[in-house]
């Protein structure tokens, strides 16, 4: 674990949601706010609506929405729920 190099580029996130459903909407709002405050431009985020693209669930093994996937830097981490515990989210996103 200590051997894994730190990513030179920033954070890459993928958020799986179910349309405009309440938790999905909250999750989008929360993660957007955290990134804007703590990671500025050094991040990429893709929002995937499973109601529109259900086939995407299989690739990342998504079981429920909302699910936030930290793609980079490795290791891949996932967070479930509306991401309202901002400290927990920050901790996960900063972990190596």
């Amino acid at each position, binding site marked *: 674990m200590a051997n894994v190099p730190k990513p030179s580029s920033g954070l890459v996130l993928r958020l799986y*949601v*179910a*349309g*405009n*459903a*309440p*938790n*999905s909407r909250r999750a989008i709002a929360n993660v957007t706010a955290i990134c804007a405050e703590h990671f500025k431009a050094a991040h990429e985020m893709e929002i995937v609506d*499973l*109601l529109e693209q*259900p*086939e995407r*669930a*299989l690739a990342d093994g*998504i*079981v*429920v*929405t*909302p699910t936030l996937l930290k793609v980079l830097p490795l290791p891949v981490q*996932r*967070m*479930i*729920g*509306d991401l*309202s515990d901002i400290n927990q989210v920050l901790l996960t996103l900063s972990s190596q």
Partner: protein
Amino acid sequence: VTGAEELQAQDLRRRLAEAEATIAALLSGQIDAVVDSTSHTPVLLAKAQAALRDERDRAQRYLDAPDVILLALDVDARITLVNRYACAVLGWSASDLVGRDWIETCLPWRMRDAFRNSHRDGLAGEITVFEHVVVTKSGEERLIGWRTTVLRDDDGRAIGTFGAGADLTERSRAAKAVATADERMRFALESAGAGIWDLDQTTGVLRLSETMEAQHGLGPGTFAGTFKAFVECVHPDDRSSVLETIRAAVADGTDFSLLYRALCPDGSIRWLSGTGRVLLGEDGTPVRTVGVSVDVTERRSLEDQYQQAQKMEAVGRLAGGVAHDFNNLLTVILGYCDLLLEEFDADDPRLGSLAQIHEAGGRAAGLTRQLLAFSRKQVIEPTLLDLNVVVSDLRPMLARLIGEDVRVLMGLRPNLALVVADRGQVEQVVMNLAVNARDAMPTGGTLTIETANVDGLGATTQPAASAGAYVSLTVTDTGTGMTPEVKARMFEPFFTTKEAGKGTGLGMATVYSIVTRCGGQVNVSSDLGKGTSFRIRFPRAEGEHITVPVPAPVRVAPVPTGLHTVLVVEDDESLRELARKILRRHGYNVLLAADANEARRVFSENPAIDVVLTDVIMPGESGPELTRQLVTQRPALKVIYMSGYTEEAIVHHGVLKLGIAFLNKPFTSETLGAKLREVLAL
């Protein structure tokens, strides 16, 4: 444990942690959907479903709130969304409509192909605004005004249209009802000959109906459409009053009426009468001024004619009223003048002054005659006349009257038919025309007097021509000519183009009066700058009318022997005395009487009386009443009436009854002597 086992254990712990986190999130209600493990599709949890439904309902409520039709169509014109108002208008439920073909369901047959094309074209554009008719479920047609935008996906591809529509049916019906009422009103006004105008106070645009354009001499649709253009159509003399009337009405917001002359492009003038109303906006300021206009030219002309007729009648009465006394005075003045002229030696230096008095008296007598002729109170004595003789006899006087600058030509056709007319009046016609001709040629020219036999249409004929033929007398000058305005008014009494004091304005009126009175006609042609031609046509005398011999011009005969006795009955003493002097000079025995009673006494005492010369109107018995008795007593008695104007007692419709001698006042020594000789010779 091996490294591999350690990695597997880590992975399991991580998965377990994730599973725990998932369960925790699920329990705390933070999950929206669970992915079905066999179909790999997300299944919304009930709460999320409800939330989404709530949101959709809220959106639907927004759509349903306004009274506007909201309609979304896909690229094939299938309905993807309608709101409640749309359903209310169309008569269908939302579930009936969504998914159906809009064109097949809601458009009339006649529009379907066109709409499908325009829908396809519309997808290529952005926003379109249009109106069209839709058919409701019950088959009723309604007019909808649309504003439509194109819906696009994230790649910019058109996926349909979204339109907002307003139901214009009622508005359109109301507008049609207004238009129909407007049309009816317009028809009523136009068929009554009333023009309509409408001024928009805010834009200044003025619209005139075709009738009103015609009233101003403008072709349909040629009016320029501004208030300024209207003002230019008004006669300059009337502009300020028209402007002031409209300005005051607009300022007060009151109704108003106008009477003005329209100046037409061809220069003609029409009298227009109109009323107007100022329409105020909600804030009380004028927004429109509307009104109607009627052409009253003809009515005014009739009013003018009526006033003219009244004026003529008044002049006639006045003339008749003063003529009697005035002629008595003139008779005395001229009579004594005559007597003095005969007494003076030819080389007497006072003769010139006397001649002036005589001439002035003669002019006064002429003026009286003119007034009487014009007012038709003059006694006329129609005889058979040869116009060639009348004109030839006038020639010396014409030459004196007209002066040296004007050449006088005579074109008198031989074998001219005779006419029945009063010689004095025909002379007056010729003189009046000649004087006017002279005045039209201040720098000289040519005056031509022609006579000819003509048929009813005016063509020259031989004297043996058919009955109904005329004899024409044409007076032509090479003078200034007349403008159409002058020509139109030339026969009006007191209308004159001459300077004040130069003309009475009665000359042409008299000509017209005389000619029409004896059944003739006057035609005028005039070229401005070239001259004027008056052609008078008298009816030619027919056989049965030729009962009076053509009187030879009366010339002074030698003084007769004093064998005859004349009784003069005249209430005016100076006239009586004058008559006595003249008659004595002519060699008659003279007896005098001041009224009928005295006359009867004198008559009974003097059986030798041959002639009674009597005034017509006297205090007490009239002249005709007296002479009727006297003639009964002595049938051979001759009677001469003297008067200044027509008396019903002796004349019938202005023409002397047969067998009655008449002496016009003022008379002169010469005319009295001649009349006596004429009577005694019969």
